[in-house]
């Protein structure tokens, strides 16, 4: 049986169908989390953002007319909340990027590893993750948003333009700049000269 379309699930959720809302949540929670994490760079903060985003979605179901796709709508909320969260955090605390990077690493935000991976490989993987987060952290938030939406979500330029409410040309410019900066920062890991070995 074909999965229910988002628009149908939204209609049912709007009518109070808890299961329909749960299906929407299950369908998009990981992707929404990936986007939030890419921007806020902290597991707990990203979880808070996603939680708040779905609460907002639920509250606004009546106002959602279904003209844009559900995930475009959801990602826009997630992105706005993520950026708001970053700005709020910057205002409230003096956390520098190192501390936040440490937070993310303390959360175990490393690249996948096998159960019996040897220690040197684990160290190399940790270093790689460390470098990745550091490189992401150095990007301005508007560059980070674009590269996360593209690389994690695989959204088209057009879809990103709708979500971020900027022209498609701006999306392209930001994405290409973000990629170039990341490539320059991670050159040793991306060009094959520095491989993770057993």
């Amino acid at each position: 049986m074909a999965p229910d379309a988002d628009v149908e699930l939204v209609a049912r959720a709007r009518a109070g169908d808890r299961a329909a809302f749960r299906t929407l949540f299950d369908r998009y929670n990981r992707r929404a989390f990936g986007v939030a994490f890419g921007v806020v760079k902290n597991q707990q903060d990203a979880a808070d953002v996603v939680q708040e985003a779905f609460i907002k979605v639920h509250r606004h179901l009546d106002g959602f007319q279904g003209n844009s796709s559900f995930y475009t709508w959801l990602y826009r909320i997630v992105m706005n909340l993520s950026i708001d969260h970053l700005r709020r955090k910057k205002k409230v605390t003096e956390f520098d990027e190192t501390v936040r990077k440490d937070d993310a690493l303390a959360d175990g935000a490393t690249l996948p590893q096998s159960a019996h991976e040897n220690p040197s490989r684990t160290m190399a993987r940790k270093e790689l993750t460390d470098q990745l987060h550091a490189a992401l952290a150095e990007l301005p938030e508007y560059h980070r948003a674009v590269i996360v939406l593209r690389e994690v979500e695989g959204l088209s330029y057009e879809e990103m333009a709708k979500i971020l409410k900027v022209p498609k040309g701006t999306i392209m410019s930001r994405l290409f700049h973000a990629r170039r900066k990341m490539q320059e920062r991670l050159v040793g890991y991306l060009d094959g000269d520095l491989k993770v070995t057993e």
Partner: protein
Amino acid sequence: MEHVQEDALNMHFDGELAPAEAASVERHLASCGECNKRLVSMQRLREMITMSAEQVASQVDFDAMFGRVEQGTKTAVGPGLIERLTLWVTESLQHNPMRVWAPAGGLALAAAAAVAFVLSSAGSGVEGEEEMARRGVIAEEREIKREKMMLAENQPPKSEGADSEESNASEVVQVDFGSNTGTVFEIALADGASTPVVWINED
């Protein structure tokens, strides 16, 4: 050999090039190690970012999160007027602008009418100004009268005659000073002159 421009290579990597352009880039890639290397670098970057995001997401308890979301939807108040209006305007502007402009025109007319009313009130602001002036005069009068009362208090103790002079007071008028009430009366002095005396109730 002329390499693929950065923009074109990015667009090709993202599948955003038109078929003819994509075919041209493919032909170049088939024989250019340098451009292939750039493409591989993009691919590795994508894999790193994706794997990192997936790994972190796998550590989140989404069941527990859904419980908190449900709790939040129960306790959250409904969206405010501004939030609802913003959502409605945003969606409508994208898909049916007339839905916004028609009521917006009505609102503009209403706003213009409101401004006209305010301006006419301000012009008839004469009334407002008069009221302010009146209050100012009352305040001034009150100050003058207070000074006079103080002067009266500084006057030497009244003699018997003075008492009798007070008895020559003119008619007593109860006055409303706005926030206070008081009494104004005039007393005749020994030299034949007279002075007004004002008594303001402090309550």
